[in-house]
Protein backbone atom coordinates (compact mmCIF):
# COMPACT_ATOMS: atom_id res chain seq x y z
CA UNK A 1 0.00 0.00 0.00
CA UNK A 2 1.40 3.30 -1.06
CA UNK A 3 -0.96 5.33 0.99
CA UNK A 4 0.49 8.35 2.83
CA UNK A 5 -0.19 8.58 6.54
CA UNK A 6 -3.90 9.28 7.07
CA UNK A 7 -3.27 12.69 8.51
CA UNK A 8 -2.05 13.79 5.10
CA UNK A 9 -5.06 12.53 3.16
CA UNK A 10 -7.99 14.84 2.55
CA UNK A 11 -11.34 14.01 4.10
CA UNK A 12 -12.85 13.50 0.69
CA UNK A 13 -10.20 10.99 -0.22
CA UNK A 14 -10.64 9.18 3.10
CA UNK A 15 -14.31 8.73 2.35
CA UNK A 16 -13.69 7.98 -1.33
CA UNK A 17 -13.56 4.70 -3.14
CA UNK A 18 -9.89 5.03 -4.10
CA UNK A 19 -7.04 2.89 -2.86
CA UNK A 20 -6.63 4.93 0.29
CA UNK A 21 -10.29 5.64 0.90
CA UNK A 22 -12.71 3.75 3.14
CA UNK A 23 -15.75 4.33 0.95
CA UNK A 24 -16.20 0.72 -0.07
CA UNK A 25 -16.05 -0.45 3.50
CA UNK A 26 -18.62 2.15 4.60
CA UNK A 27 -21.01 1.40 1.76
CA UNK A 28 -20.67 -2.31 2.46
CA UNK A 29 -21.53 -1.63 6.08
CA UNK A 30 -24.49 0.48 5.05
CA UNK A 31 -25.71 -2.29 2.75
CA UNK A 32 -25.43 -4.81 5.56
CA UNK A 33 -27.32 -2.53 7.91
CA UNK A 34 -30.14 -2.11 5.41
CA UNK A 35 -30.36 -5.80 4.59
CA UNK A 36 -30.48 -6.70 8.27
CA UNK A 37 -33.03 -4.03 9.06
CA UNK A 38 -35.27 -5.16 6.19
CA UNK A 39 -34.91 -8.80 7.09
CA UNK A 40 -35.45 -8.28 10.80
CA UNK A 41 -38.39 -6.02 10.20
CA UNK A 42 -40.06 -8.48 7.84
CA UNK A 43 -39.48 -11.37 10.22
CA UNK A 44 -40.80 -9.18 13.02
CA UNK A 45 -43.89 -8.39 10.96
CA UNK A 46 -44.68 -12.06 10.42
CA UNK A 47 -44.18 -12.74 14.12
CA UNK A 48 -46.22 -9.64 14.91
CA UNK A 49 -49.21 -10.70 12.77
CA UNK A 50 -49.15 -14.20 14.18
CA UNK A 51 -48.54 -12.94 17.69
CA UNK A 52 -51.34 -10.38 17.55
CA UNK A 53 -53.93 -12.84 16.27
CA UNK A 54 -52.64 -15.44 18.72
CA UNK A 55 -52.94 -13.05 21.64
CA UNK A 56 -56.44 -12.03 20.59
CA UNK A 57 -57.96 -15.29 19.40
CA UNK A 58 -55.59 -18.05 20.57
CA UNK A 59 -56.06 -20.66 23.25
CA UNK A 60 -54.96 -20.02 26.83
CA UNK A 61 -51.57 -21.73 26.46
CA UNK A 62 -50.68 -19.82 23.30
CA UNK A 63 -51.77 -16.59 24.94
CA UNK A 64 -49.55 -17.26 27.96
CA UNK A 65 -46.56 -18.12 25.79
CA UNK A 66 -47.00 -14.98 23.74
CA UNK A 67 -47.42 -12.88 26.85
CA UNK A 68 -44.19 -14.28 28.25
CA UNK A 69 -42.41 -13.57 24.95
CA UNK A 70 -43.54 -9.98 24.57
CA UNK A 71 -43.06 -9.17 28.24
CA UNK A 72 -39.57 -10.59 28.41
CA UNK A 73 -38.31 -9.13 25.16
CA UNK A 74 -39.68 -5.71 25.94
CA UNK A 75 -38.33 -5.73 29.49
CA UNK A 76 -34.71 -6.63 28.74
CA UNK A 77 -32.37 -4.08 27.11
CA UNK A 78 -31.92 -4.87 23.47
CA UNK A 79 -28.16 -5.00 23.75
CA UNK A 80 -28.41 -7.69 26.41
CA UNK A 81 -30.96 -9.56 24.32
CA UNK A 82 -28.71 -9.45 21.32
CA UNK A 83 -25.81 -10.87 23.29
CA UNK A 84 -27.96 -13.57 24.86
CA UNK A 85 -29.80 -14.50 21.68
CA UNK A 86 -26.64 -14.42 19.60
CA UNK A 87 -24.89 -16.93 21.78
CA UNK A 88 -28.03 -18.85 22.64
CA UNK A 89 -29.26 -19.00 19.07
CA UNK A 90 -26.01 -20.21 17.52
CA UNK A 91 -25.29 -22.39 20.54
CA UNK A 92 -28.69 -24.03 20.58
CA UNK A 93 -28.72 -24.60 16.84
CA UNK A 94 -25.37 -26.34 16.98
CA UNK A 95 -26.46 -28.40 19.98
CA UNK A 96 -29.44 -29.60 17.98
CA UNK A 97 -27.35 -30.31 14.91
CA UNK A 98 -24.81 -32.24 16.95
CA UNK A 99 -27.47 -34.27 18.72
CA UNK A 100 -28.93 -35.21 15.34
CA UNK A 101 -25.50 -36.32 14.22
CA UNK A 102 -24.66 -33.39 11.98
CA UNK A 103 -21.55 -31.27 12.12
CA UNK A 104 -21.66 -27.91 13.74
CA UNK A 105 -22.04 -25.05 11.29
CA UNK A 106 -21.03 -21.46 11.12
CA UNK A 107 -24.17 -19.42 10.78
CA UNK A 108 -23.80 -16.39 8.62
CA UNK A 109 -23.75 -13.28 10.79
CA UNK A 110 -26.39 -11.75 8.54
CA UNK A 111 -28.82 -14.55 9.32
CA UNK A 112 -28.01 -14.34 13.02
CA UNK A 113 -28.52 -10.60 12.98
CA UNK A 114 -31.84 -10.92 11.19
CA UNK A 115 -33.12 -13.61 13.53
CA UNK A 116 -31.99 -11.83 16.68
CA UNK A 117 -33.33 -8.40 15.75
CA UNK A 118 -36.40 -10.02 14.17
CA UNK A 119 -37.31 -11.59 17.51
CA UNK A 120 -36.99 -8.20 19.18
CA UNK A 121 -39.06 -6.54 16.45
CA UNK A 122 -41.65 -9.31 16.66
CA UNK A 123 -42.38 -8.58 20.30
CA UNK A 124 -42.96 -4.89 19.70
CA UNK A 125 -44.87 -5.40 16.46
CA UNK A 126 -47.15 -7.94 18.15
CA UNK A 127 -48.29 -5.22 20.52
CA UNK A 128 -48.64 -2.52 17.87
CA UNK A 129 -50.60 -4.81 15.55
CA UNK A 130 -52.75 -6.09 18.39
CA UNK A 131 -53.65 -2.52 19.23
CA UNK A 132 -54.40 -1.85 15.57
CA UNK A 133 -56.74 -4.83 15.40
CA UNK A 134 -58.50 -3.86 18.62
CA UNK A 135 -59.18 -0.45 17.14
CA UNK A 136 -61.03 -1.91 14.14
CA UNK A 137 -64.69 -1.00 14.64
CA UNK A 138 -66.59 -4.17 15.52
CA UNK A 139 -69.25 -3.38 12.93
CA UNK A 140 -66.69 -3.79 10.14
CA UNK A 141 -66.15 -7.38 11.21
CA UNK A 142 -69.80 -8.09 11.95
CA UNK A 143 -70.73 -7.06 8.43
CA UNK A 144 -68.26 -9.60 7.07
CA UNK A 145 -69.38 -12.30 9.49
CA UNK A 146 -73.05 -11.68 8.73
CA UNK A 147 -72.37 -12.24 5.05
CA UNK A 148 -70.84 -15.63 5.71
CA UNK A 149 -67.22 -14.64 5.13
CA UNK A 150 -64.88 -17.37 6.44
CA UNK A 151 -62.60 -16.13 9.22
CA UNK A 152 -59.35 -16.40 7.25
CA UNK A 153 -60.80 -14.39 4.37
CA UNK A 154 -62.06 -11.90 6.90
CA UNK A 155 -58.64 -11.56 8.53
CA UNK A 156 -57.01 -11.01 5.15
CA UNK A 157 -59.59 -8.86 3.42
CA UNK A 158 -61.06 -6.81 6.26
CA UNK A 159 -59.12 -7.01 9.53
CA UNK A 160 -55.60 -6.54 8.15
CA UNK A 161 -56.31 -3.59 5.85
CA UNK A 162 -58.30 -1.91 8.61
CA UNK A 163 -55.57 -2.66 11.11
CA UNK A 164 -52.94 -1.23 8.77
CA UNK A 165 -54.41 2.25 8.91
CA UNK A 166 -54.46 2.14 12.72
CA UNK A 167 -51.07 0.53 13.26
CA UNK A 168 -49.03 2.32 10.62
CA UNK A 169 -47.63 5.15 12.76
CA UNK A 170 -46.49 2.63 15.36
CA UNK A 171 -45.10 0.28 12.74
CA UNK A 172 -43.24 3.17 11.12
CA UNK A 173 -41.58 3.98 14.43
CA UNK A 174 -40.50 0.37 14.76
CA UNK A 175 -38.98 0.45 11.30
CA UNK A 176 -36.83 3.41 12.27
CA UNK A 177 -35.87 1.53 15.44
CA UNK A 178 -34.92 -1.47 13.33
CA UNK A 179 -32.56 0.59 11.20
CA UNK A 180 -30.85 1.97 14.28
CA UNK A 181 -30.81 -1.29 16.21
CA UNK A 182 -28.58 -2.75 13.53
CA UNK A 183 -25.82 -0.70 15.13
CA UNK A 184 -26.10 -2.87 18.23
CA UNK A 185 -24.86 -5.80 16.18
CA UNK A 186 -21.45 -4.12 16.21
CA UNK A 187 -20.94 -5.68 19.65
CA UNK A 188 -21.02 -9.16 18.19
CA UNK A 189 -18.46 -8.13 15.62
CA UNK A 190 -20.79 -7.81 12.70
CA UNK A 191 -19.58 -5.33 10.11
CA UNK A 192 -22.59 -3.12 9.70
CA UNK A 193 -22.31 0.63 9.28
CA UNK A 194 -21.36 1.53 12.84
CA UNK A 195 -18.71 -1.13 13.06
CA UNK A 196 -17.30 -0.14 9.66
CA UNK A 197 -17.17 3.46 10.80
CA UNK A 198 -15.46 2.60 14.00
CA UNK A 199 -12.84 0.47 12.22
CA UNK A 200 -12.16 3.19 9.73
CA UNK A 201 -11.73 5.85 12.37
CA UNK A 202 -9.61 3.62 14.56
CA UNK A 203 -7.20 3.00 11.70
CA UNK A 204 -7.01 6.57 10.55
CA UNK A 205 -7.79 8.49 13.74
CA UNK A 206 -10.03 10.60 11.54
CA UNK A 207 -13.02 10.35 13.89
CA UNK A 208 -14.38 13.68 12.79
CA UNK A 209 -14.54 12.52 9.22
CA UNK A 210 -16.10 9.11 9.59
CA UNK A 211 -18.64 9.61 12.36
CA UNK A 212 -20.32 12.58 10.73
CA UNK A 213 -20.34 10.59 7.50
CA UNK A 214 -22.06 7.71 9.27
CA UNK A 215 -24.53 10.12 10.81
CA UNK A 216 -25.33 11.48 7.40
CA UNK A 217 -25.91 7.96 6.06
CA UNK A 218 -28.26 7.09 8.94
CA UNK A 219 -30.07 10.33 8.32
CA UNK A 220 -30.49 9.48 4.65
CA UNK A 221 -32.02 6.11 5.57
CA UNK A 222 -34.38 7.82 7.95
CA UNK A 223 -35.42 10.57 5.55
CA UNK A 224 -36.02 8.15 2.70
CA UNK A 225 -38.04 5.96 5.02
CA UNK A 226 -40.16 8.85 6.21
CA UNK A 227 -40.92 9.80 2.64
CA UNK A 228 -41.95 6.26 1.75
CA UNK A 229 -43.93 5.77 4.94
CA UNK A 230 -45.88 8.93 4.20
CA UNK A 231 -46.99 7.44 0.92
CA UNK A 232 -47.89 4.09 2.43
CA UNK A 233 -49.83 5.79 5.17
CA UNK A 234 -51.77 7.82 2.65
CA UNK A 235 -52.64 4.65 0.82
CA UNK A 236 -53.61 2.77 3.99
CA UNK A 237 -55.83 5.62 5.10
CA UNK A 238 -57.65 5.86 1.79
CA UNK A 239 -61.31 6.10 2.44
CA UNK A 240 -60.79 7.86 5.77
CA UNK A 241 -61.59 11.47 6.23
CA UNK A 242 -58.77 13.72 7.32
CA UNK A 243 -59.20 14.49 11.00
CA UNK A 244 -57.63 17.90 10.53
CA UNK A 245 -60.01 19.42 7.98
Amino acid at each position, binding site marked *: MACPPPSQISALELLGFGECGWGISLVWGLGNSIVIALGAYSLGFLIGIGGAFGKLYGGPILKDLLAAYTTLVRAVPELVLILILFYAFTGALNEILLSWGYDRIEISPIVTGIVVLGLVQGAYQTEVIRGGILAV*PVGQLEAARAMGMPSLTMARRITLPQMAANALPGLANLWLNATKDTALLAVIGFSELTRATSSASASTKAFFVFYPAAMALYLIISLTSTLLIGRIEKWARRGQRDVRT
Partner: protein
Amino acid sequence: MRFLIRPNTAAIKPQPPSNQAPSTLLHNPDDKSVTPPASLPIYSLAKPIPGAPNLPKQRRDHMPDQGSTGASQPIAIRVSALRKSFGTHEVLKGVSLTAREGDVVAIIGGSGSGKSTMLRCVNFLETPSGGEIEIGGEKVAMRAEGTPSDRRQLERLRQSLGMVFQNFNLWTHKTVLENLIEVPVHVLKIPKAEAEARARQLLARVGLAEKEGAYPAFMSGGQQQRAAIARALAMNPKAMLFDEPTSALDPELVGEVLQVIKGLADEGRTMILVTHEMKFAREVASHVIYLHNGIIEEEGPPDQLFGAPKSDRLKQFLKTVG
Protein backbone atom coordinates in the same frame (compact mmCIF):
# COMPACT_ATOMS: atom_id res chain seq x y z
CA MET B 1 -94.97 12.68 6.42
CA ARG B 2 -92.06 10.86 4.96
CA PHE B 3 -93.60 8.06 3.02
CA LEU B 4 -96.69 7.20 1.23
CA ILE B 5 -99.49 5.64 3.16
CA ARG B 6 -101.25 3.20 0.98
CA PRO B 7 -104.95 3.68 0.36
CA ASN B 8 -105.98 0.59 2.29
CA THR B 9 -104.33 1.82 5.45
CA ALA B 10 -104.95 5.49 5.00
CA ALA B 11 -108.27 5.34 6.79
CA ILE B 12 -106.53 5.24 10.15
CA LYS B 13 -104.77 8.57 9.86
CA PRO B 14 -106.14 11.34 7.72
CA GLN B 15 -103.63 12.38 5.12
CA PRO B 16 -102.59 15.99 4.98
CA PRO B 17 -104.05 17.53 1.88
CA SER B 18 -101.24 16.95 -0.52
CA ASN B 19 -101.34 16.46 -4.22
CA GLN B 20 -97.62 16.09 -4.58
CA ALA B 21 -96.27 12.91 -5.99
CA PRO B 22 -94.81 10.68 -3.27
CA SER B 23 -91.38 10.73 -4.82
CA THR B 24 -91.28 14.49 -4.42
CA LEU B 25 -92.18 14.17 -0.79
CA LEU B 26 -89.38 11.71 -0.31
CA HIS B 27 -86.89 13.60 -2.28
CA ASN B 28 -83.98 15.22 -0.50
CA PRO B 29 -83.22 18.33 -2.54
CA ASP B 30 -79.47 18.18 -1.94
CA ASP B 31 -79.10 14.72 -3.23
CA LYS B 32 -79.26 14.57 -6.96
CA SER B 33 -78.46 10.91 -7.16
CA VAL B 34 -81.66 9.75 -5.51
CA THR B 35 -84.02 11.78 -7.60
CA PRO B 36 -86.29 9.30 -9.26
CA PRO B 37 -88.23 10.44 -12.27
CA ALA B 38 -91.32 12.09 -10.80
CA SER B 39 -93.61 9.53 -12.32
CA LEU B 40 -91.52 6.54 -11.41
CA PRO B 41 -90.75 5.98 -7.73
CA ILE B 42 -87.70 3.81 -7.09
CA TYR B 43 -89.73 1.03 -5.66
CA SER B 44 -91.75 0.51 -8.76
CA LEU B 45 -88.91 0.30 -11.25
CA ALA B 46 -90.03 -1.72 -14.19
CA LYS B 47 -87.10 -4.09 -13.97
CA PRO B 48 -87.00 -6.15 -10.79
CA ILE B 49 -83.73 -7.12 -9.19
CA PRO B 50 -82.38 -10.23 -10.83
CA GLY B 51 -83.12 -13.19 -8.64
CA ALA B 52 -85.88 -11.47 -6.72
CA PRO B 53 -88.74 -13.74 -5.81
CA ASN B 54 -91.57 -13.22 -8.19
CA LEU B 55 -94.56 -13.11 -5.92
CA PRO B 56 -97.84 -11.53 -6.86
CA LYS B 57 -97.80 -7.95 -5.73
CA GLN B 58 -101.26 -8.23 -4.21
CA ARG B 59 -99.88 -10.36 -1.41
CA ARG B 60 -98.92 -7.15 0.35
CA ASP B 61 -102.53 -6.03 0.42
CA HIS B 62 -103.10 -8.57 3.09
CA MET B 63 -106.47 -9.93 4.03
CA PRO B 64 -107.70 -8.52 7.31
CA ASP B 65 -107.87 -11.94 8.91
CA GLN B 66 -104.56 -13.18 7.64
CA GLY B 67 -101.34 -11.44 8.56
CA SER B 68 -98.92 -13.24 6.34
CA THR B 69 -98.75 -14.67 2.90
CA GLY B 70 -100.61 -17.70 4.05
CA ALA B 71 -99.63 -21.22 4.82
CA SER B 72 -98.98 -22.02 1.19
CA GLN B 73 -95.52 -20.42 1.02
CA PRO B 74 -92.48 -22.31 2.26
CA ILE B 75 -90.92 -21.13 5.50
CA ALA B 76 -87.95 -18.82 5.03
CA ILE B 77 -87.01 -18.22 8.65
CA ARG B 78 -88.30 -19.85 11.77
CA VAL B 79 -87.22 -18.94 15.28
CA SER B 80 -88.48 -21.27 17.98
CA ALA B 81 -88.45 -20.67 21.72
CA LEU B 82 -85.32 -18.55 21.44
CA ARG B 83 -83.63 -17.63 24.67
CA LYS B 84 -80.59 -15.45 25.16
CA SER B 85 -78.77 -14.33 28.27
CA PHE B 86 -75.85 -11.97 28.65
CA GLY B 87 -74.28 -13.27 31.83
CA THR B 88 -77.12 -13.47 34.31
CA HIS B 89 -79.25 -11.00 32.40
CA GLU B 90 -81.88 -12.89 30.41
CA VAL B 91 -82.63 -10.69 27.43
CA LEU B 92 -84.84 -13.07 25.42
CA LYS B 93 -87.13 -15.37 27.35
CA GLY B 94 -88.41 -17.74 24.72
CA VAL B 95 -89.52 -15.90 21.60
CA SER B 96 -90.70 -17.44 18.34
CA LEU B 97 -91.25 -16.12 14.89
CA THR B 98 -92.11 -17.53 11.50
CA ALA B 99 -91.43 -15.76 8.24
CA ARG B 100 -92.73 -17.46 5.14
CA GLU B 101 -91.37 -16.50 1.76
CA GLY B 102 -92.61 -13.05 0.86
CA ASP B 103 -93.45 -12.13 4.44
CA VAL B 104 -92.37 -8.88 5.98
CA VAL B 105 -92.18 -9.36 9.72
CA ALA B 106 -91.74 -6.16 11.67
CA ILE B 107 -90.38 -6.24 15.21
CA ILE B 108 -91.24 -3.24 17.35
CA GLY B 109 -90.70 -2.49 21.00
CA GLY B 110 -89.02 -0.15 23.41
CA SER B 111 -85.30 0.39 23.64
CA GLY B 112 -83.61 -2.56 25.32
CA SER B 113 -86.56 -4.88 24.80
CA GLY B 114 -84.35 -7.33 22.89
CA LYS B 115 -85.23 -6.55 19.26
CA SER B 116 -81.68 -6.37 18.00
CA THR B 117 -80.67 -9.40 19.99
CA MET B 118 -83.51 -11.41 18.50
CA LEU B 119 -82.59 -10.37 14.98
CA ARG B 120 -78.88 -10.98 15.54
CA CYS B 121 -79.57 -14.47 16.84
CA VAL B 122 -81.14 -15.34 13.49
CA ASN B 123 -77.74 -15.19 11.77
CA PHE B 124 -75.81 -16.02 14.93
CA LEU B 125 -74.10 -12.68 15.37
CA GLU B 126 -75.28 -13.42 18.89
CA THR B 127 -75.09 -16.96 20.14
CA PRO B 128 -78.48 -18.11 21.41
CA SER B 129 -78.66 -19.63 24.88
CA GLY B 130 -81.49 -21.89 23.85
CA GLY B 131 -84.09 -22.54 21.22
CA GLU B 132 -83.85 -23.26 17.53
CA ILE B 133 -83.23 -21.35 14.33
CA GLU B 134 -84.32 -22.64 10.96
CA ILE B 135 -83.33 -20.92 7.73
CA GLY B 136 -84.82 -22.00 4.42
CA GLY B 137 -86.16 -25.15 6.03
CA GLU B 138 -82.73 -26.05 7.38
CA LYS B 139 -82.12 -26.21 11.09
CA VAL B 140 -78.90 -24.50 12.18
CA ALA B 141 -76.80 -27.13 13.89
CA MET B 142 -76.19 -26.06 17.47
CA ARG B 143 -74.38 -27.50 20.44
CA ALA B 144 -76.30 -27.85 23.67
CA GLU B 145 -75.09 -24.47 24.91
CA GLY B 146 -76.21 -22.72 21.73
CA THR B 147 -72.98 -22.26 19.77
CA PRO B 148 -73.25 -23.25 16.12
CA SER B 149 -71.53 -26.57 15.55
CA ASP B 150 -71.15 -26.60 11.78
CA ARG B 151 -69.09 -23.65 10.61
CA ARG B 152 -69.59 -24.35 6.92
CA GLN B 153 -73.33 -24.67 7.28
CA LEU B 154 -73.45 -21.43 9.21
CA GLU B 155 -71.42 -19.60 6.56
CA ARG B 156 -73.65 -20.97 3.82
CA LEU B 157 -76.85 -20.01 5.63
CA ARG B 158 -75.49 -16.57 6.45
CA GLN B 159 -74.86 -16.05 2.76
CA SER B 160 -78.56 -16.49 2.17
CA LEU B 161 -79.42 -13.70 4.63
CA GLY B 162 -78.70 -10.07 3.84
CA MET B 163 -78.16 -8.05 7.00
CA VAL B 164 -78.52 -4.29 7.16
CA PHE B 165 -77.23 -2.58 10.29
CA GLN B 166 -78.22 0.57 12.05
CA ASN B 167 -74.75 2.02 11.48
CA PHE B 168 -74.43 0.82 7.88
CA ASN B 169 -71.08 -0.90 8.52
CA LEU B 170 -69.83 -0.42 5.01
CA TRP B 171 -66.16 -1.32 4.80
CA THR B 172 -64.42 2.01 5.03
CA HIS B 173 -61.30 0.99 3.12
CA LYS B 174 -63.28 0.00 0.07
CA THR B 175 -65.20 2.04 -2.46
CA VAL B 176 -68.91 1.48 -2.80
CA LEU B 177 -68.44 -0.82 -5.77
CA GLU B 178 -65.71 -2.75 -3.95
CA ASN B 179 -68.04 -3.13 -1.00
CA LEU B 180 -70.68 -4.64 -3.24
CA ILE B 181 -68.44 -7.14 -5.00
CA GLU B 182 -66.36 -8.16 -1.98
CA VAL B 183 -68.34 -11.18 -0.91
CA PRO B 184 -69.60 -12.20 -4.37
CA VAL B 185 -66.04 -12.26 -5.73
CA HIS B 186 -63.97 -13.37 -2.76
CA VAL B 187 -66.38 -15.71 -1.04
CA LEU B 188 -68.95 -16.81 -3.60
CA LYS B 189 -66.27 -16.89 -6.33
CA ILE B 190 -68.39 -15.15 -8.94
CA PRO B 191 -66.28 -13.78 -11.83
CA LYS B 192 -65.36 -10.17 -11.14
CA ALA B 193 -66.85 -8.74 -14.32
CA GLU B 194 -70.15 -10.44 -13.64
CA ALA B 195 -70.20 -9.29 -10.02
CA GLU B 196 -69.43 -5.73 -11.07
CA ALA B 197 -72.17 -5.69 -13.68
CA ARG B 198 -74.66 -6.88 -11.12
CA ALA B 199 -73.38 -4.44 -8.52
CA ARG B 200 -73.83 -1.54 -10.93
CA GLN B 201 -77.39 -2.65 -11.59
CA LEU B 202 -78.08 -2.67 -7.87
CA LEU B 203 -76.46 0.72 -7.36
CA ALA B 204 -78.60 2.18 -10.10
CA ARG B 205 -81.60 0.69 -8.44
CA VAL B 206 -80.89 2.35 -5.09
CA GLY B 207 -80.04 5.61 -6.85
CA LEU B 208 -76.27 5.49 -6.35
CA ALA B 209 -75.05 4.87 -9.87
CA GLU B 210 -72.73 7.89 -9.67
CA LYS B 211 -71.27 6.87 -6.35
CA GLU B 212 -69.61 3.59 -7.22
CA GLY B 213 -66.10 5.02 -6.84
CA ALA B 214 -66.80 6.91 -3.61
CA TYR B 215 -65.55 5.87 -0.21
CA PRO B 216 -68.32 5.49 2.40
CA ALA B 217 -66.92 8.16 4.71
CA PHE B 218 -67.57 10.74 2.05
CA MET B 219 -71.24 9.95 1.60
CA SER B 220 -74.33 10.98 3.54
CA GLY B 221 -75.88 8.53 5.98
CA GLY B 222 -78.78 7.91 3.65
CA GLN B 223 -76.44 7.15 0.77
CA GLN B 224 -74.37 4.85 2.95
CA GLN B 225 -77.42 2.95 4.09
CA ARG B 226 -78.71 2.56 0.54
CA ALA B 227 -75.26 1.29 -0.47
CA ALA B 228 -75.36 -1.13 2.47
CA ILE B 229 -78.73 -2.43 1.28
CA ALA B 230 -77.30 -2.87 -2.20
CA ARG B 231 -74.34 -4.72 -0.71
CA ALA B 232 -76.67 -7.12 1.05
CA LEU B 233 -78.68 -7.60 -2.15
CA ALA B 234 -75.50 -8.31 -4.11
CA MET B 235 -75.33 -11.72 -2.44
CA ASN B 236 -78.74 -12.48 -3.83
CA PRO B 237 -80.04 -13.39 -0.38
CA LYS B 238 -83.21 -15.34 0.26
CA ALA B 239 -84.22 -13.00 3.04
CA MET B 240 -83.19 -9.63 4.43
CA LEU B 241 -82.64 -8.67 8.06
CA PHE B 242 -82.92 -4.99 8.92
CA ASP B 243 -81.87 -3.71 12.33
CA GLU B 244 -83.29 -0.21 12.68
CA PRO B 245 -81.98 0.82 9.28
CA THR B 246 -83.02 4.45 9.67
CA SER B 247 -82.32 5.12 13.34
CA ALA B 248 -78.88 6.60 12.75
CA LEU B 249 -80.07 8.91 10.01
CA ASP B 250 -80.91 12.59 10.03
CA PRO B 251 -84.68 12.92 9.71
CA GLU B 252 -84.52 14.28 6.18
CA LEU B 253 -82.59 11.20 5.02
CA VAL B 254 -84.98 8.62 6.44
CA GLY B 255 -87.39 8.75 3.53
CA GLU B 256 -84.95 7.77 0.83
CA VAL B 257 -83.95 4.64 2.73
CA LEU B 258 -87.49 3.64 3.62
CA GLN B 259 -88.40 4.03 -0.02
CA VAL B 260 -85.77 1.52 -1.04
CA ILE B 261 -86.92 -0.93 1.63
CA LYS B 262 -90.51 -0.44 0.55
CA GLY B 263 -89.48 -1.27 -2.99
CA LEU B 264 -87.99 -4.54 -1.80
CA ALA B 265 -91.12 -5.39 0.14
CA ASP B 266 -93.30 -4.68 -2.88
CA GLU B 267 -91.12 -6.95 -4.91
CA GLY B 268 -91.92 -9.84 -2.61
CA ARG B 269 -88.68 -9.98 -0.66
CA THR B 270 -88.81 -11.85 2.59
CA MET B 271 -87.66 -9.70 5.44
CA ILE B 272 -87.47 -9.21 9.14
CA LEU B 273 -87.42 -5.55 10.02
CA VAL B 274 -86.66 -4.07 13.40
CA THR B 275 -87.90 -0.53 13.31
CA HIS B 276 -89.04 2.50 15.22
CA GLU B 277 -90.90 3.84 12.20
CA MET B 278 -94.39 2.78 13.19
CA LYS B 279 -96.17 4.16 10.16
CA PHE B 280 -93.74 2.41 7.92
CA ALA B 281 -94.11 -0.86 9.79
CA ARG B 282 -97.84 -0.60 9.44
CA GLU B 283 -97.48 0.07 5.76
CA VAL B 284 -95.07 -2.66 4.70
CA ALA B 285 -95.38 -5.43 7.28
CA SER B 286 -97.45 -8.51 6.84
CA HIS B 287 -96.98 -9.40 10.48
CA VAL B 288 -95.93 -7.32 13.47
CA ILE B 289 -94.34 -8.49 16.69
CA TYR B 290 -94.31 -6.29 19.78
CA LEU B 291 -91.44 -7.22 22.03
CA HIS B 292 -91.33 -6.19 25.66
CA ASN B 293 -88.69 -7.27 28.16
CA GLY B 294 -87.67 -10.25 26.08
CA ILE B 295 -91.10 -11.72 25.49
CA ILE B 296 -93.60 -11.25 22.72
CA GLU B 297 -96.27 -9.19 24.39
CA GLU B 298 -98.53 -9.09 21.37
CA GLU B 299 -98.37 -9.96 17.68
CA GLY B 300 -100.61 -9.99 14.67
CA PRO B 301 -101.41 -8.32 11.39
CA PRO B 302 -100.42 -4.65 11.34
CA ASP B 303 -103.93 -3.24 11.13
CA GLN B 304 -104.94 -5.23 14.17
CA LEU B 305 -101.81 -4.48 16.16
CA PHE B 306 -101.74 -0.77 15.43
CA GLY B 307 -105.49 -0.28 14.96
CA ALA B 308 -106.79 -2.30 17.86
CA PRO B 309 -103.99 -3.17 20.27
CA LYS B 310 -105.09 -5.47 23.08
CA SER B 311 -102.36 -5.25 25.69
CA ASP B 312 -102.07 -2.15 27.82
CA ARG B 313 -98.33 -2.09 27.37
CA LEU B 314 -98.63 -1.95 23.62
CA LYS B 315 -101.27 0.77 23.87
CA GLN B 316 -98.92 2.72 26.10
CA PHE B 317 -95.99 2.09 23.77
CA LEU B 318 -97.89 3.21 20.70
CA LYS B 319 -98.95 6.33 22.53
CA THR B 320 -95.37 7.25 23.46
CA VAL B 321 -93.92 6.66 20.00
CA GLY B 322 -96.74 8.58 18.44
